[in-house]
C-alpha cells in the first residue's frame, strides 16, 4: 500500500492527478434521482474492454486465410490453454453487447435523454451502435464456418439491390463477385483495425459529449423541471447531486458484475445458445446449408427484405427507419420529456418495439 502511495505521489507531483481525480470523478455530480439505466454506459465500456482483450488474445492464434481460418479457430478452441474460454467470451460477449446497446438506446429513447441540445451525444451513440453492428458482421465471417460464409453471402448480397451502384457496392464489400478469401482479408482488416479504431474514437467523442453538455436527468419524480432550449451552450450541472465516485461507481460496478455473470452463465451453461449447427462446419461454397439465418439482431432486417415485393423497397424502408432514428433529436424538439405526458411517442415506442420483436420472431421461423 505504501508503495502505491509513493507511486501516486510521484505521478501527482508531476501531473497533478489527485486534483484531476477530485475534480473529474469525486467532483463530478450526477442527478440525485439517477437510476439503474444510467449504468449501461459503464457496462458497455466494460464489455467493449473485454472484447478488445479477448480479441487480442484470439489474434495470437487466429490465421486470416480461407484455407486455415476454420482450423485455427478449432485449434484455439481445442488446443490452446483456455482458448475455448477466450473464444466464447469474445463470441458470446458480442451478443451481450448488442443486448446492452439495445437496452441503452431504448432507455435513452424512453426518457427522451436526447433532448436539450444533445444531438451530438445521440448521433455519436447511434454511430457507435452501427459500428458495433458492423463489428458483429465482420467478426461473423472470421471463423470461416458454413454459417459465417453463407450469412456473409446473404448480407453482402443486400447492397446489390441498390440501383446503378448496387453491383459495385456488392463487389466492393466482397472484394470480388463472390465471398471468398479476399472477403475474409478485408473483413479481418476492418474487424481488427479500422472498426475498433473508429469505435474507440467515437466512444471518446460520445463520452466527451455526455460530460461536456452534462448528464440528462431522469424525467421522473418531483425534481423534474421542463427545460426550454438554451440560446447558447450551457453545461447542465447538478448542484447537490451525488458524486460519480465513489457513490455511483459502485452501482456501475454492481451492474457490470451482473452482466458478466450473465455472460459467464451463457459461456458455461448454454455455450451454443447463439450458434446453430452450421457454425461448427467449415465453409463450403458449394453446399448451401438449409435454413441459414442471420444473427438474431439482424433478423428484423432479413425479414423486412422478404416482406416487401422488391428488395429495393425493403432496403428503402430499412434505410428510412434508420435515418429517422438518427435524426430523431432534430425532429422531436418539444421540451417535454416525461413519458406520461408524451402518449403518442410512448405508444409509437412500444408499438415499434413490438413490431421489432414480432418481425424478428417471424424471420427466425420463416
Amino acid at each position, binding site marked *: 500500500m505504501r508503495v502505491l502511495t509513493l507511486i501516486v505521489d510521484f505521478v501527482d507531483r508531476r501531473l497533478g492527478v489527485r486534483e484531476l481525480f477530485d475534480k473529474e470523478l469525486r467532483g463530478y455530480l450526477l442527478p440525485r434521482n439517477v437510476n439503474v439505466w444510467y449504468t449501461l454506459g459503464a457496462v458497455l465500456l466494460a464489455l467493449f474492454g473485454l472484447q478488445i482483450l479477448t480479441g487480442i488474445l484470439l489474434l495470437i492464434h487466429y490465421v486470416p486465410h480461407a484455407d486455415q481460418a476454420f482450423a485455427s479457430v478449432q485449434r484455439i478452441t481445442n488446443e490452446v490453454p483456455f482458448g475455448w474460454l477466450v473464444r466464447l467470451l469474445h463470441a458470446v460477449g458480442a451478443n451481450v453487447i448488442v443486448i446492452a446497446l439495445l437496452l441503452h438506446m431504448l432507455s435513452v429513447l424512453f426518457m427522451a435523454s436526447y433532448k436539450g441540445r444533445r444531438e451530438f451525444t445521440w448521433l455519436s451513440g447511434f454511430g457507435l451502435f452501427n459500428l458495433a453492428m458492423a463489428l458483429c458482421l465482420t467478426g461473423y465471417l472470421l471463423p470461416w464456418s458454413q454459417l459465417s460464409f453463407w450469412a456473409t453471402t446473404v448480407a453482402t448480397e443486400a447492397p446489390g439491390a441498390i440501383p446503378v451502384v448496387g453491383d459495385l457496392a456488392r463487389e466492393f464489400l466482397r472484394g470480388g463477385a463472390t465471398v471468398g478469401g479476399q472477403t475474409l482479408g478485408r473483413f479481418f482488416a476492418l474487424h481488427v483495425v479500422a472498426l475498433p479504431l473508429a469505435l474507440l474514437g467515437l466512444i471518446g467523442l460520445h463520452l466527451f459529449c455526455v460530460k461536456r453538455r452534462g448528464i440528462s436527468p431522469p424525467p421522473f419524480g418531483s425534481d423534474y423541471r421542463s427545460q426550454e432550449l438554451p440560446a447558447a451552450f450551457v453545461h447542465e450541472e447538478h448542484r447537490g447531486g451525488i458524486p460519480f465516485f*465513489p457513490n455511483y461507481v459502485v452501482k456501475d460496478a454492481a451492474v457490470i458484475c451482473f452482466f458478466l455473470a450473465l455472460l459467464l452463465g451463457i459461456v458455461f451453461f448454454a455455450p451454443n445458445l447463439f450458434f446453430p449447427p452450421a457454425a461448427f462446419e467449415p465453409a463450403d461454397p458449394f453446399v448451401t446449408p438449409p435454413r441459414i439465418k442471420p444473427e438474431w439482431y439482424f433478423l428484423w432486417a432479413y425479414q423486412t427484405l422478404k416482406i416487401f415485393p422488391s428488395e429495393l423497397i425493403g432496403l428503402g424502408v430499412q*434505410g428510412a427507419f434508420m435515418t429517422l432514428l438518427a435524426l430523431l433529436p*432534430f425532429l422531436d424538439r418539444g421540451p417535454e420529456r416525461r413519458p406520461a405526458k408524451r402518449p403518442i411517442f410512448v405508444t409509437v415506442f412500444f408499438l415499434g418495439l413490438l413490431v421489432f420483436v414480432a418481425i424478428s420472431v417471424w424471420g427466425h421461423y420463416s
Partner: protein
Amino acid sequence: MNGRLRSLLPLLAGVLLAATPALALAPPETVCIQCHGGQAGPLGDPAREWPGSVHQRNGISCHDCHGGDPADYANAMSPARGFIGVPAHDRVPEFCGRCHVGVLEDYRQSAHGRKVSEGGAQCVVCHGSHAVREASLDLINERDCSRCHDYGRAAEIRAALDETDARLAGLGEGFERLRRLGADVEPAKGKLFDLRNRFHRVFHSVEVDKVRAETGRVQAEAALLQAEIDAYDRQTARRRVWGGVAVGLLVMLGLVLLQVRHTYADEERRG
C-alpha cells in the same frame, strides 16, 4: 430543420441504406432439379424423392451419380460429359460401387450379389434409388426382406447386429453433441465413420458367423471412442463447476456493491 441539414439527408440516407444488412439468398439449383422438378410422373419422381435423402444431406447431387453437366441444359445429359442414364438391374451394384467400394466387395461375395444377374436384390431394392435411406438396421425388416425370401436368417443377422448398431448410432449422436460445443471431433468422427462402414459392410455379406465375429471387433473399437466422449464430458462437467463458482461470485459481488450503494444513498439522504 435547417437547409444545411436537409441537404445532408440524401447522403445520410444513402450511407444508412448501404449499411443495412441481410437478404434472403436462394441456394442455386442444378439444371437437373430445375427440369425434372417441373415434370409429372416417373420423370419428376427423382427430383421429388432426392430432398431429404442421405445423399442430399451429404451434398451428393444428381450429377455425382449420373454424370452430365449440372450447370448447362444443353449438356446436362451429354454422354460426352459422362452422363449415365438408368443402369440395368444387374449393373446397379457397379454403379453405386464407384463410391461405396468396400460394400461392393462384400456384396458381390454375398448370396444377394451372387444372384444379382438372376434378379437378386441389389442396392436400390433395399436402400431405394433416389430417396436413398441411410444404412441402418431398420433396412432389415420382415416387410422388406419377405418381399423376396423368408425373414428367418435376416432376423438372426439383425439380432446379432442390433446392440452394436445402437451403440454406433449413440456414438454418432455423442460426437455431434460435442461438435456443437466446439470440440474438434473430426478425427474421432473419421474413426467412427470407418468403423460404421466396416460394420455395415458386414450387413451385405448376409453371413451370421461373419457378422458375429466382426461385431466383437467393432464393439472393442467403439469402447475406445466412447472413452473419448466420456473424457470430454468429464472435462465439461469440471468447467461447469468452475463456471458456476465464477457466476456465483460475480452475483455475490454485485449484491455486495449494491449494498454499498445503499449505504451511500442513506448518507446522501441525511445530507
